[in-house]
């Protein structure tokens, strides 16, 4: 009994050391990405988040032409993520639909996007882009929200951490169901 306890403590210590080491390695990795592509850590986290919403959203089946049709993750307007997003989405598949990152200049009803990061640009303002898919089953994501309008999901910075707020009503009106587990993480949901 006593010997076992000692062994457990040893294991724990070893595990902790490993965890600390791996975390340290992750921090270093993040720092390297930020230095390389010049995007900030915040942008990297946002890119990661953007790639992670898909499993928690259910679209009407009609939005996919086939059961294996790709799930289009579109970036409209200015792209703050660059290859980071491609990296995050690479190899991901949600309910049989491989995630495909597309960059579109203008968002339209027939753009075929399931998730759209609306960055806005001179070509199509954020408000115009949002309006173009208003009421359609497109999970619009905006970075923050201002008078120019907000997406169903808004990425916000709270206490130095990237968080998100979700407008579940709007999502529902647009024909999408967002997992309560995701809603629970949202700042508004807290």
């Amino acid at each position, binding site marked *: 009994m006593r010997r076992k306890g000692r062994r457990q403590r040893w294991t*724990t210590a070893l*595990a902790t050391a490993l965890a600390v080491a791996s975390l340290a390695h992750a921090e270093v990795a993040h720092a390297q990405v930020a230095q390389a592509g010049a995007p900030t850590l915040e942008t990297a986290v946002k890119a990661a988040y953007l790639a992670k919403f898909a*499993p*928690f959203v259910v679209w009407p089946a009609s939005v996919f032409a086939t059961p294996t049709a790709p799930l289009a993750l579109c970036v409209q307007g200015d792209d703050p993520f660059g290859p980071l997003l491609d990296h995050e989405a690479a190899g*991901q598949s949600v309910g049989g639909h491989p995630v495909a990152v597309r960059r579109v200049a203008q968002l339209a009803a027939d753009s075929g996007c399931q998730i759209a990061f609306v960055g806005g640009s001179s070509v199509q303002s954020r408000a115009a882009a949002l309006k173009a898919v208003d009421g359609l089953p497109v999970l619009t994501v905006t970075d923050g929200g201002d008078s120019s309008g907000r997406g169903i999901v808004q990425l916000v910075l709270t206490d130095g951490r990237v968080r998100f707020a979700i407008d579940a009503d709007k999502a529902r009106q647009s024909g999408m169901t967002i997992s309560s*587990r995701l809603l*629970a993480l949202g700042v508004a949901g807290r």
Partner: protein
Amino acid sequence: MSESQKTTGRRDPERGRVAVLWIGAVVLVAASIALAFRQEDAHRTLVLHEAEAQTDVLAGSVSAALAFEDQDAMRQYLEALTRNPEIAAAGIYGPNGQRLAMSTRLGAAPPPATVTAEADSQNGGAARIARVVTEQGQRQGFVYLRTEPESLGEFVGRHTGLVILTLLALLLLSFMTRAAQRLASANARLSEEIEARAAAEDALRQSQKLEALGQLTGGIAHDFNNLLQAIYGAFELILNKPGDPKTVSRWARNGLEAANRGASLTRQLLAFSRQQKLELKPLIVAERLEGMHELLARTLGPRVELAFDLDHDRVTVMSDATQLEVAVMNLAVNARDAMPDGGRLTVRTRKIQLEDDALLAPGAYLQLQVTDTGHGMPPHVARRAFDPFFTTKAVGKGTGLGLAQVYGVARQAGGDARIVSSPEAGATVTLLFREASGDVAGPAPEPPPAPLPTTAPSATVLLIDDDDAVRGVVRGGLEMRGYTVIDANSGEAALAIAGEAQPHIAVVDYAMPGMDGAQTAESLRRILPGLPIILASGYSDTAAVERALGGAATVLRKPFDINALSLALERLLAEG
């Protein structure tokens, strides 16, 4: 079956019960242990299932927090989980297996640093479960959960009920076992006591028997001594004056009287010993009693007043006249002894009707009551008064047979004898005789004493008796009457001479060593068919004798006088 076997037989069921109780206890303990193992197994399965369910819930809820690496949310989930005291540690792991969050109960080891596969294991009551977290087929990571190993207290607590129940049952069983053992030993003790008691009773009975025998022989010796004294004296006087016929005849009569009394005493003894058959004949008690007045008055003496109060109903009862008279005499003698200073003896007869008697059948009975005004007797004496050999008289003064004879007479007449007495209040002995159906043939006329024959019969008598004195006396008497007598001292000797002697008649003693009277008579008949035979017997095993002789023998009861014998001889010879 011997005593020891009996004893064992009595004890065995108790031992068997003890054994069964022991087996019961063993079975109970075995069943309890089996039940406990089963319960333990079920409990472990339950713990594992519960842990699995908890882990599944965690896996289902934590996916978003895991995906977005929301530490707060993850920690909240884990803390909520580890608030359950049964959960020792829980952790959330990323898709590559690295730990992202964990929660540990105080004192418990933390969850493993990495989890890369699902797992289900149980070790010492603690379940370890790992589950993969997916969302729409996308692997988000792992969750891990470990339950607290069960503490000794909980383990004991879980089994306490069963343990208490088992202990109670064992306690109960042990009580029962002890009770059964106590019962068994009590039984054994009781058996021993019963045996000891039986042995003591046997010893007591034996000593009572010896005492009774002493009293009996004392009493009989006393009575016979008196009789012998009278006979001895009579013969002595006759010897002194052999030439004086008057004196000789007077003393001879005295001697005969004494011998008669002896004969009646032996009859009494035999009646008591039941070897002499009562000659039950219809008779009327009052008539018999009337004839006894003189005798009773003389027995009681001048100081006792005798009163007769007899019925006139002429109730017929079945009894032996002689024995009835002896019974009344016995009662009178007892009454006289109870009234040393005089008193009154009342003899009363009544016809009564019994309806619901405890002992006797309903019907008409003659009640004969003999009441004295003597000193009476205490209850414990009254209770035993009818017991044979029970006497309050000094050794040598009484045989203890008087009231027993009275009782025997009443019982043989289909009735009963009862005694009512208390100290200083006299005693009443009541005899009940069942009324007999049918009429009494008037008392048979006494045969007139046979005169000495004027012409001597020329018959030859074969006399067989093993007793030389008896044989001599009887031979003398018969020769005096003119018979030719050939005698033999045994059946065998008689058979040897019978063919040559060609007797006309045989007188055979019944009780002889070697061939008895019946066998001798039978053998004689084979040599001399149709030979009249007189069997002389003190015993009244008449039925056996008659069976042996096919009814062709005349039985003469001993002691007899020569007159009776010659009458029987004459009758048989006349018939032949």
